[in-house]
């Protein structure tokens, strides 16, 4: 009963000073709203940036070394021996080779059913990379197999999700053609191509073969401006077109744990190989920019919460001074100094919590308005999200806890002052 009783007294006290209580709650509300709004914005932008620059923390992209010393120091080329050694490095869970197709592939017509997406007369030269099926595990559509179909078979291919996004938001508007239908519905479409044909006449092979490519999936692990075929298909085409083995163009190393990446990178470099950190570095740079911006805004919000705490501290201090006699009466009726302290702290907590609730609601309400404004004012660009805000459940809890905590901190000094009231002297 006593806790409820003290809460009852705190509520009654706040009710008695509605104006002051509302002003304090408004201060806490502004802090909470800013905190939730900016954090949700930061999380939303961060999620969009991750879609734009997907970087798997466990992947190390190995490329041939710039300086090749052949077998003297055991490094330089990315051949099968290097692949085996890479896969055996401590901390490496897998090593997946990538092999660029050195036979030209071109399409001079659209996939069936997507004629409106193809500018008239266009021939599209398609850069192709061969990938091990394991690297695309999970990205290949149900019912599709990412393996070499053999000569004359329809070749399964996988596209970069980012390429589709860039096509939709940049290329299609520039070419004046329609955008693609949603991603899942284009999986399974077939594109007629000519293997051995190049738009650069000198590069065209003596033998040109008509073939069909079937889109088997969409993946972030496919290089953005390339089309992925099964590694075995690329090897077969190299054999058919008598292309000499030049080793792999790249090997993707999968670290057992993200913390193994630095030691793996160092080991790779000791082998005379290089690590392509372009994608990772870009992702890290973008992530850093987003984190710093979000951090600054959150810091601003925390400062606002701190200012709210100061406002509440000042207001409660004035309130305690004004009702010192009431506090003495409460003590005469059976309140201990600790009870008085709790009542004032509860007043702060209630004000902070009430401000937090309204602040969270305001921030949640402002997010769709900001999205609507962004949709109206910002041009469409690749990876532009439907919403710039992400509201995980913990953010709501944080939006309530921070202003409540700030208010309680602000109430500490007034609560201590209230607990020091000498009832006998005050009532005399």
């Amino acid at each position, binding site marked *: *009963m*006593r806790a*409820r*009783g*003290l809460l*009852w*007294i705190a509520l*009654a*006290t706040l*009710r*008695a*000073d509605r104006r002051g209580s509302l002003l304090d709650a408004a201060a806490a509300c502004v802090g909470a709203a800013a905190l939730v709004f900016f954090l949700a914005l930061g999380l939303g932008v961060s999620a969009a940036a991750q879609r734009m620059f997907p970087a798997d923390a466990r992947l190390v992209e190995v490329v041939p070394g710039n300086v090749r010393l052949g077998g003297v120091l055991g490094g330089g080329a990315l051949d099968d021996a290097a692949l085996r050694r890479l896969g055996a490095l401590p901390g490496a869970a897998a090593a997946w080779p990538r092999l660029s197709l050195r036979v030209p592939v071109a399409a001079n017509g659209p996939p069936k059913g997507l004629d409106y997406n193809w500018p008239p007369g266009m021939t599209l030269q398609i850069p192709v990379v061969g990938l091990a099926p394991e690297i695309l595990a999970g990205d290949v559509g149900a019912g599709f197999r990412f393996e070499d179909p053999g000569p004359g078979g329809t070749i399964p291919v996988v596209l970069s999700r980012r390429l589709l996004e860039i096509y939709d938001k940049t290329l299609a508007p520039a070419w004046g053609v329609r955008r693609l239908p949603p991603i899942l519905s284009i999986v399974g479409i077939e594109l007629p191509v000519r293997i051995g044909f190049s738009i650069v006449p000198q590069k065209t092979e003596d033998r040109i073969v008509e073939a069909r490519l079937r889109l088997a999936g969409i993946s972030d692990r496919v290089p953005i401006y390339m089309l992925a075929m099964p590694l075995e298909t690329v090897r077969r085409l190299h054999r058919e077109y008598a292309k000499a083995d030049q080793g792999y163009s790249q090997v993707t190393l999968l670290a057992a744990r993200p913390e193994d990446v630095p030691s793996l990178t160092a080991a790779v470099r000791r082998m005379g190989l290089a690590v392509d950190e372009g994608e990772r570095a870009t992702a890290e740079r973008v992530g850093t920019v987003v984190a710093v911006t979000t951090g600054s805004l959150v810091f601003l919000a925390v400062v606002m919460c701190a200012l709210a705490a100061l406002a509440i501290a000042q207001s409660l201090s004035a309130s305690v001074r004004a009702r010192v*006699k*009431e506090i003495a*009466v*409460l*003590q*005469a*009726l*059976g*309140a*201990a*100094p*600790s*009870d008085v302290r709790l009542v004032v702290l509860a007043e702060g907590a209630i004000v902070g919590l009430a401000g937090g609730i309204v602040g969270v609601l305001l921030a949640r309400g402002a997010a769709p308005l900001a999205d609507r404004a962004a949709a109206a004012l910002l041009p469409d660009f690749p990876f532009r999200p439907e919403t710039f805000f992400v509201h995980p459940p913990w953010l709501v809890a944080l939006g309530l806890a921070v202003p409540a905590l700030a208010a309680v901190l602000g109430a500490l000094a007034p609560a201590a002052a209230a607990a020091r009231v000498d*009832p*006998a002297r005050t*009532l*005399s």
Partner: protein
Amino acid sequence: MIRLHGVTKSFRDAGVEVPVLRGVDLEVAAGEMVAIVGPSGSGKSTLLYVAGALDRDFSGEAVVAGVALAGLSAEARADLRNRAVGFVFQSFNLLPGLSALENVMLPGMLRRGAREAAAAIRARATAALDEVGLLDKAAQPPARLSGGERQRVAIARALFARPKVLLADEPTGHLDAVTGEGIIRLFADLAAAGLTVLVVTHEERVSRAASRVLHLSGGRLSS
């Protein structure tokens, strides 16, 4: 019910120790109404607050409702005040932000270790207001009550916890003659019903109603 022995208390004023109570001895039995009279500043209120466990800064022995005050923690003294002592003040000291009923409910809300529901406390407070004839004013804030009504609300609040001791500090000081007489009669009735009543006053009419009148002067109590 109240036993003070050799109670001494002094204030510090500008670095100088000013004695207020000098070895006061006082015994008030259950069912007795004792009036303490004396000039302003003689320490009447101080004596009352010592007896009410509000003032801990004194020397001597004090036993209230069977509980020795020496060495009691702040919480224990608060609990004693809540359960066994009722205070009535000259200026009523009702909380202005609460209604009359809520003011009466306060001791119930501050009770430690009780499991009485708020609804039950409200019901008892309503009954207490009814006893002092103010049921129709239950929802009114103190500002809308007359002086006599405020003092009756204060008395209902003091009696809410069914205390063993009622301490009143100039309870009729702000009341007109008729209203004051009513309050004095009520105190006398309460004492007759077994309550220990200690009233600090400088009014003759209050003294007349008391079973004993003691004079406090120069920090000493005399008959």
